[in-house]
């Protein structure tokens, strides 16, 4: 058991260093930092001075360890645009993305589990079939199109909800929150639905199939035979057993929520990290790109590690067979 955990940990560390290496290579070699900071007209002396200051004349492995070391201290250098520290840019935009990701995960999990359970229990009802066919269409629609269509319906035609931005925010220390104002909450609705819809359909289908499987098992038949009511059978005995895989899959989906937040944030002009990243791609702002890669890469590795370790604890079959998940 311990050896598996150690092996898994080493794997994650190796992947982390690889991700760091890629972001370092991007940071160091894509576009010339000296040109970007000084412009083409700088003198040779100015260039040499800056190279010295940035440490570009040191051996390459030393530069790499410097890069990792500063990254561990949340120092990612300065953005080429506006010359602000990248760490500051990211931390000022992080609350917006985290609140959006949190709300859409919440939306996906709650609605996903409710509809999943419903469509499993009332398998043949009209509403179940309706929900399932709608979800099929939902899966085929690209995220950005869902966002645009929601804006069209709820912001342009019905004028119920705002179409862009976070609304009013309140500053709590360094964290700016939109959860405490009415306009902030209203602004969260459409982006959260857009971002969460795909995860919702996934969670719904998973809950449904797990529930159907569990309802077919002997112990469920047994508690039914004991004369428990349908409600008790479904919610006290069946539901908890379906939730383990659902929660793990939902956890794994956190990564793709972060990735697709880029798309959602662009559609709704949501001032988060994703919008920062897509702008950095557009304007070739290398330090921001490499810092984003590092952060998101780190996040993914950690999520995968936690999910794998959870599996190890939950499922003794994996423990015994020494099956090990992927990095």
């Amino acid at each position, binding site marked *: 058991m311990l050896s598996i955990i150690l092996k898994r940990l080493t794997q994650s560390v190796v*992947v982390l260093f*690889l991700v760091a290496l890629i972001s370092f290579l*991007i940071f160091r070699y*894509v*576009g010339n930092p000296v040109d970007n900071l000084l412009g083409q007209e700088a003198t040779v002396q100015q260039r040499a001075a800056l190279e010295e200051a940035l440490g570009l004349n040191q051996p390459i492995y030393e530069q790499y360890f410097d890069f990792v070391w500063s990254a561990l201290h949340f120092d990612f250098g300065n953005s080429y645009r506006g010359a602000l520290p990248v760490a500051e840019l990211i931390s000022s935009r992080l609350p917006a993305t985290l609140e959006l990701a949190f709300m859409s995960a919440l939306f996906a999990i709650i609605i996903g589990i409710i509809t999943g359970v419903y469509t499993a229990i009332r398998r043949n009802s009209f509403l179940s079939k309706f929900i399932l066919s709608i979800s099929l269409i939902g899966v*085929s*629609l*690209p*995220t*950005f*199109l869902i966002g*645009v*269509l929601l*804006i*069209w319906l709820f912001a*342009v035609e019905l004028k119920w909800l705002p*179409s862009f931005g976070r609304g009013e925010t309140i500053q709590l220390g360094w964290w700016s929150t939109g959860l405490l104002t009415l306009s902030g909450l209203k602004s969260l609705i459409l982006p959260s639905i857009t971002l969460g819809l795909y995860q919702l359909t996934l969670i719904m289908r998973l809950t449904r199939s797990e529930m159907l499987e569990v309802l077919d098992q002997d112990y469920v038949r047994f508690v039914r035979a004991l004369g428990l009511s349908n409600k008790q059978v479904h919610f006290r005995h069946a539901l908890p057993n379906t939730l383990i895989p659902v929660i793990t899959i939902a956890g794994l989906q956190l*990564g*793709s929520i972060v*990735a*697709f937040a*880029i*798309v959602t944030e*662009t*559609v709704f002009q949501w001032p988060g990290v994703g919008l920062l*990243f*897509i702008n*950095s*791609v*557009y304007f*070739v702002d*290398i330090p921001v*790109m490499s810092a984003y*890669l590092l952060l*998101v*890469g780190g996040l*993914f*590795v950690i999520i*995968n590690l936690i999910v794998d370790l959870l599996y190890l604890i939950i499922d003794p079959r994996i423990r015994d067979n020494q099956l090990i998940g*992927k*990095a």
Partner: protein
Amino acid sequence: MNRFLKSDFFYDFLRAPIAVASFVVVSTLILLALLANFIAPTNPFDPASLNLMNGFTAPMEPNAFTGEIFLMGTDDQGRDLFSAILFGLRVSLFVGLMAVLLATVIGVFLGLIAGYIGGWLDSLIMRLADIQMTFPSILIAMLIYGVARGVLPPELRDEMAITVLILSIGLSEWVSIARTVRGSTLVEKEKEYVAAARLIGLNHSRIMIRHILPNVLSPVLVIATITLALAIIAEATLSFLGVGAPPTKPSLGTLIRVGQDFLFSGEWWILLFPALTLLALALSVNLFGDWLRDTLNPRLK
């Protein structure tokens, strides 16, 4: 051809209405894109053919100034939307197909080598695939796009945008193909015909290409079709975000991006028609891919 018409495959095809319908839609769209030059009433990218007076004409309604009628209306510059969609469709399909081709070539090559040669090369390739799998492919595509933009000199960025787009989507989608090919290769290389080929002294590359490759291609066809739908959506997403096809060579995604700006002023058609075209394309490629998977290789489900 006669053999094909009498095959089980064709028989199954004719009896699956969804397959026939999606195939018809896809081939119609491909034809429209190929023949865009002849079908399109105007050349949407020739500034001389544009008449600003025609701007914002609603579909099928005569323009207030010129009296011209446009099937799908016009955009702000008086560009015929139907023509723009035909040419946009061509860009979307071209990028999608080329990206899948690239992904297939890389995937088949690496998968064959990993499966046939095995050993440390296999571990290396599969580890790489594992790592790439943990990141969503759209994120990888964006990153490659950004890096390529950084490497290119600014004046070439728009010109090379389509190539860069193909490269970034192709490189982000090879993993599933490589995995499938590796899996099938592992099975095939244990079979007698491979042993026989080795026995008569054929070299490894010949065995891989002439003997194993043809036998692992049918799952590749399935995965490539499904990947095509993914690639088309990825291209549309990147272009919609402004990091894909340039405004001078718009794809469906670029057109939707432009259309979104006019939603608030009530010109809904500039958004709706490109969006519907994209939806029809992605949906029918997806459905056809699903049917192909069920028919050719039920195990892939």
